[in-house]
């Protein structure tokens, strides 16, 4: 059956009027084969492999943008968790040098971010991983494009509280070294981190992956918002249905781009991650979708239900559209990158407590939110631990990307600029859990992990 004018118009207006785009194509690169006992040779091998990968990715992705008239907003790299390949070179100086090498590879290869400068420490830390955490503040401040992650728990390992306890002080130190603490935006702490997530700051090329992988992140809150607006009277079942249908279509576009790009690069296609992700462009907001449902401002009672409904519909539409849906797939609710979320915080509709509740039904967690600069390190670690406990107990990925903004107090608005937007500084609870956090150790794996 021929494609009708209405169908062509629907696709064209998704792109032209509602910000449909391929949010990212992320090339995963295995770096294990680059390891060399001679450190300069090691760096050289890493640089060469990444630069070549990046160049090819950028060139082929541009060709597809033109062919399909759909913007591919970001081209990115992810690498083998760095702590793994640095085991034999675990000094602070070498970690910093390796970070600069990755930064250079990204710059020269023309990609905006490179993820994977992190490690998996859900059960314990090696000397290399401890060194990495110690080097993190400086490398987050002094590199431009390197993103870092740590996986500190999983539903089968529990949560490594000793590692979490290092992160409060680490983040405060990192914040002090960069303007408005923005270095912290390049660090994401996870439990149950997916090994094929294409989105930053948490992307990495998992140890279970092959030599290369190509993962596509597709977004489109504007498109979902438009379809919600056209369906003001329908009940929840019907609302779920219209969202599913729309997400099906946009996931198919992602699948097409991913398959062709992987074929052009002669590597296996990984996953399509369908995650509604906001940008600061007007209309490109997840919060506005929920407002379209009939929630006055995100954070109002009813918001968790609304988000749960949307998340589930997005996943179902995506799963029907592609056999390769993976990564985080769902909805992100970053504060600073979403105009509707920013307004909700400023108007007093949304606080940290409700944000945490929302994160239990969103695909990741507490994302891109600012807290006062005088927040104690124990408090930051506790905010992280709370969020991650939700993930461990509920068999899901959760993550935290928090920015303690030096010199700021609750209610201030901090401008980060560009993609990162601006963040209203959110109040934290003034009571302490320091004594509890100091116990350290590991949260045992939940009983739901005993499935064998």
């Amino acid at each position, binding site marked *: 059956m021929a494609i009708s004018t209405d169908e062509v118009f629907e696709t*064209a207006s998704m792109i032209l009027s509602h910000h449909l785009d391929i949010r990212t194509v992320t090339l995963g690169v295995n770096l294990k084969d680059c390891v060399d006992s001679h450190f300069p040779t090691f760096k050289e091998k890493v640089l060469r492999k990444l630069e070549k990968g990046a160049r090819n990715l950028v060139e082929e992705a541009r060709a597809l943008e033109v062919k399909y008239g759909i913007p591919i907003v970001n081209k990115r790299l992810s690498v083998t968790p760095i702590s793994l390949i640095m085991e034999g070179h675990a000094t602070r100086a070498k970690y910093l040098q390796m970070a600069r090498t990755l930064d250079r590879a990204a710059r020269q290869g023309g990609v905006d971010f490179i993820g994977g400068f992190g490690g998996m420490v859900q059960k314990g830390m090696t000397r290399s991983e401890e060194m990495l955490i110690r080097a993190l503040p400086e490398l987050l401040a002094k590199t431009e494009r390197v993103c870092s992650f740590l996986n500190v728990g999983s539903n089968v390992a529990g949560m490594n509280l000793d590692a979490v306890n290092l992160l409060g002080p680490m983040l405060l130190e990192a914040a002090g070294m960069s303007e408005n603490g923005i270095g912290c935006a390049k660090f994401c702490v996870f439990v149950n981190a997916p090994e094929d997530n294409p989105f930053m700051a948490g992307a990495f090329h998992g140890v279970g992956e092959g030599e290369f992988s190509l993962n596509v992140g597709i977004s489109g809150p504007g498109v979902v918002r438009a379809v919600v607006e056209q369906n003001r009277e329908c009940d929840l079942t019907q609302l779920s249905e219209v969202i599913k249908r729309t997400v099906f279509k946009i996931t198919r576009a992602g699948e097409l781009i991913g398959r062709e790009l992987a074929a052009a690069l002669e590597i296996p296609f990984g996953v399509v991650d369908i995650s509604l992700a906001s940008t600061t462009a007007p209309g490109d907001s997840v919060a506005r979708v929920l407002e379209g449902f009939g929630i006055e401002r995100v954070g109002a009672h009813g918001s968790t239900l609304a988000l749960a409904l949307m998340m589930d519909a997005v996943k179902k539409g995506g799963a029907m559209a592609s056999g390769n849906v993976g990564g985080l797939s769902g909805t992100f609710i970053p504060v600073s990158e979403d105009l509707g979320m920013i307004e909700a915080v400023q108007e007093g509709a949304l606080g940290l407590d409700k944000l945490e509740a929302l994160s239990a039904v969103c695909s990741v967690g507490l994302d891109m939110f600012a807290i006062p600069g005088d927040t104690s390190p124990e408090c930051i670690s506790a905010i992280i631990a709370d969020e991650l406990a939700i993930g461990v107990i509920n068999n899901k990925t959760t993550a935290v990307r928090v920015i303690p903004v030096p010199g700021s107090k609750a209610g201030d608005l901090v401008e980060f600029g560009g993609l990162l937007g601006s963040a209203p500084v959110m109040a934290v609870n003034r009571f302490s859990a320091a004594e509890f956090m100091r116990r350290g150790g590991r949260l045992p794996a939940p009983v739901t992990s005993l499935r064998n």
Partner: protein
Amino acid sequence: MEQEKKELVFITVIGNDQKGIVARISNYLYKHDINIEDISQKITAGYFVMTMLVDIASTRRSIEKISAELANMGVDMGLKIQVQHENIFKMMHRV
């Protein structure tokens, strides 16, 4: 088989109806050896929308050039003109 060699792209024109849209675009296509397979237009959601399905298999013009030149022509006439390979529509609208 002649048919298998075809490379079909959709040209979508969105904006206000005016004289000369079809003339200017088809003139451009003719000049660059691009055959029009199908053409249709309608008013939808308050917009004038015209779609042309064209075969670019025999042109020497790259899709990148065609896309940029038609977009410029659109700017001249106050229209949005977008060029997209037909596969994206097949993927999105056909199971």
